[in-house]
């Protein structure tokens, strides 16, 4: 799968070409993290199981529609009313298929929900309509909102063609920076209404609920540093469509250097809480 929509968008952006519309955007991205790849695998498995069942059931329907037409002289068989064996078969076989589907799903769910052993914790707070990121224990925190270029273009009657704006609606003023190759724990909450933090290339989406803290974990493969983009996924008011998420994944050493530099520059708003 070379056509990762958002990754290819990122690559295009690096090459200085605006992201293009694309007829090939048909499927879920494989993504850049352990979980996204696992979820992609689950998704494809389920899709193919459904396709196989569809071929069989739709095939039977089509055969019936072709073979048993009144116009071809078909006469109805008034005795075909029950068949206990047949009915039991098509009750039991689906149950077995479902069990087969449930086992891998449960396994990956257990892995997804296990946030232990993380190397970094980031607290994400949703606001109407921006994100706030706090690197717990380091004193670094900042807001991240829609980039000015997109914000100007998206106004009604702006006269700016969105296609001329690089990463239209998927660019922020200050992206979240994360290290590659380690497990990152995300703590999610919100300040006003419910939001949801979602970057498709990381596979995970979770609600940010005011007054409560949700957790999840993400990671970026060590060999896939780059820029990853996502959006708020829970309706949060008028500008719900305009609070993107941009994550820049850097190798661990580069990330550490970035964090140091941020710490030096920052006058922490909130006292750092040691982990």
């Amino acid at each position, binding site marked *: 799968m070379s056509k990762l*929509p*958002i990754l290819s968008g990122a690559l295009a952006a690096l090459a200085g070409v*605006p992201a293009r*519309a*694309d007829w090939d*955007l*048909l*499927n*879920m991205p494989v993504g850049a993290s352990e979980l*996204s790849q696992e*979820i992609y695998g689950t998704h494809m498995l*389920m899709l193919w199981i*459904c396709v196989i*069942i*569809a071929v069989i059931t739709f095939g*039977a*329907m089509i055969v*019936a529609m072709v073979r*048993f037409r*009144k116009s071809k002289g*078909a006469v*109805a*068989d*008034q005795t*075909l*009313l*029950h*068949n206990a064996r047949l009915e039991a078969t098509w009750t039991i076989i689906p*149950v077995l298929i*479902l069990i087969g589907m*449930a086992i891998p*799903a449960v396994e990956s*769910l257990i892995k997804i929900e296990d946030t232990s052993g993380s190397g970094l914790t980031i607290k994400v707070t949703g606001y109407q309509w921006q994100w706030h990121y706090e690197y717990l224990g380091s004193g670094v925190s900042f807001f991240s909102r829609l980039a000015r270029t997109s914000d100007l273009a998206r*106004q009604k009657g702006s006269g700016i*063609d*969105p*296609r001329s704006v690089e990463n*239209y*609606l998927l660019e922020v003023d200050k992206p979240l920076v994360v290290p590659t190759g380690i497990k990152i724990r995300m703590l*999610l909450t919100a300040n006003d*209404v*419910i939001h*949801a933090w*979602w970057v498709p290339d990381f596979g995970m989406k979770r*609600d940010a*609920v*005011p*007054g*409560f803290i*949700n*957790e999840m974990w993400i990671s970026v493969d060590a060999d896939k540093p780059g820029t990853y983009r*996502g*959006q*708020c*996924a*829970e*309706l949060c*008011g008028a500008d719900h*469509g*305009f609070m993107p998420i941009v994550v820049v994944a850097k190798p661990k050493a580069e990330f550490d250097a970035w964090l140091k530099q941020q710490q030096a520059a920052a006058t922490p708003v909130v006292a750092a809480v040691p982990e």
Partner: protein
Amino acid sequence: MADHGHGPPQGITRWLTTTNHKDIGTMYLVFSLVMFLVGGLMALGIRAELFQPGLQLVNPAFFNQLTTMHALVMVFGAVMPATVGLANWMIPLQIGAADMALPRMNLFSFWLLAVAFVLLLSTFLMPGGAPASGWTLYPPLVLQTGEAFPMAIFSIHLMGASSIMGAINVIVTIVNMRAPGMTLMKLPLFSWAWLITAYLLIAVMPVFAGGVTMLLTDYFFHTSFFNAAGGGDPVLYQHVFWFFGHPEVYIMILPAFGIVSEIIPTFSRKPIFGYEAMVYAIASIAFLSFIVWAHHMFTVGMPLAGQMFFMLATMLIAVPTGVKIFNWTTTMWRGSLSFEPPMLFALAFLFLFTIGGFSGLMMAIVPSDFQYHDTYFIVAHFHYVLVPGAVFAIMAAVYYWLPKWTGHMYDMALAKWHFWLTAIFVNVLFFPQHFLGLAGMPRRIPDYATQFTDWNMVSSIGAFGFGLSQLVFVWVIVKCARGGERATAEVWDWPHGLEWTVPSPAPYHTFEKAPEVR
């Protein structure tokens, strides 16, 4: 018309004062058709804005009002009243009863609904506009609604009261007024489906009413049911809502199952395969609908055990639903099939509802649902089960029973045009939304990143094609109501059921003396 002077009063008085199940059924169906067009216009507004990136037609706040009101109008104004209208018309005819058991309450529930919608639609004109929080009305967002807030809640209360009364009427009628000899296991499947639907309505409508009432007290009296700062929990609302909301989707689809179970045998010219299994499948689906609600909220942060329970319970629904699909297919097997408009819509239902079933099964799988949730993938899914699912079944029912209602055959050629246009455009409209969702487009956004442009354009073209095709539907109905070839009592080649024993149009009063069912 009846010969013995029991005809209806003339003019507007007839419709304001009638307690006749046929008149009330007609009013429900006409109301539903009007709401289908109103909700459809809102959808066209949405699809026009989404035709290309950038904001061209509406501002984001109004866009959110459109998505919210489109859903409320289609769910509570179009689909549910259509099935209630069909129930009013057909249940007494199917069970050999003279009327519904509680005719005055029947009329009251219709007018309550009409008033509720005047109130709901008027919120567009209020300061702050119509509700814009999505039809799910999640707090805290819904608490940011303007003057419309109490009006919207009150209209929901009225709709709920109307639905509960309608449901009580169906249950009392079916339980008490069946013709002698019609045991429950001889009940036509449309009536069976509605009997079970009515129990669902009575079970969950009060829960929804309770949920929105708590919103009302949070808003006006500063209670904190859903406010964390006061010790409440916004997610509690979601649990209450979906405890209602999931059975609600079956309230829309079970009558559709009943309709398809009437039509496929007629045009296969043989009885339904596995009647008992069909009844038990509907009952199992209804039961399961109460224990799967949290699959609408896998991303809210539930405990692992909770997620597993709701995933496994949800997957189980595939079993009785599969039984229904297989039984319909086997009903056609070794039949003698013909393809009149009702059958065409029923067959499209069979194929396209199944596609919606597959995407539903995929979404039951929690890990994948973390990607699908709140994207266009789910928009595609629920439109597949609601439009080529519930709405196609309703259209099939109209084409099936219209000659019985009007006494005229409709224009078959025009109806087939309606079918083919509708069936093609519905796929142009909704199929690309699967791609958009998988590629990462969230739902409920007024504007999108440019890589989503192509499939959005296709979807919008499908939407306008679909919308315009429905004018053909209206024309077929109007033309048929005004005249046409006389319909026989049986109407179709292979009629089954009591409704085909009365003349067409069905006289104002039918079964004043109960028929004998062997």
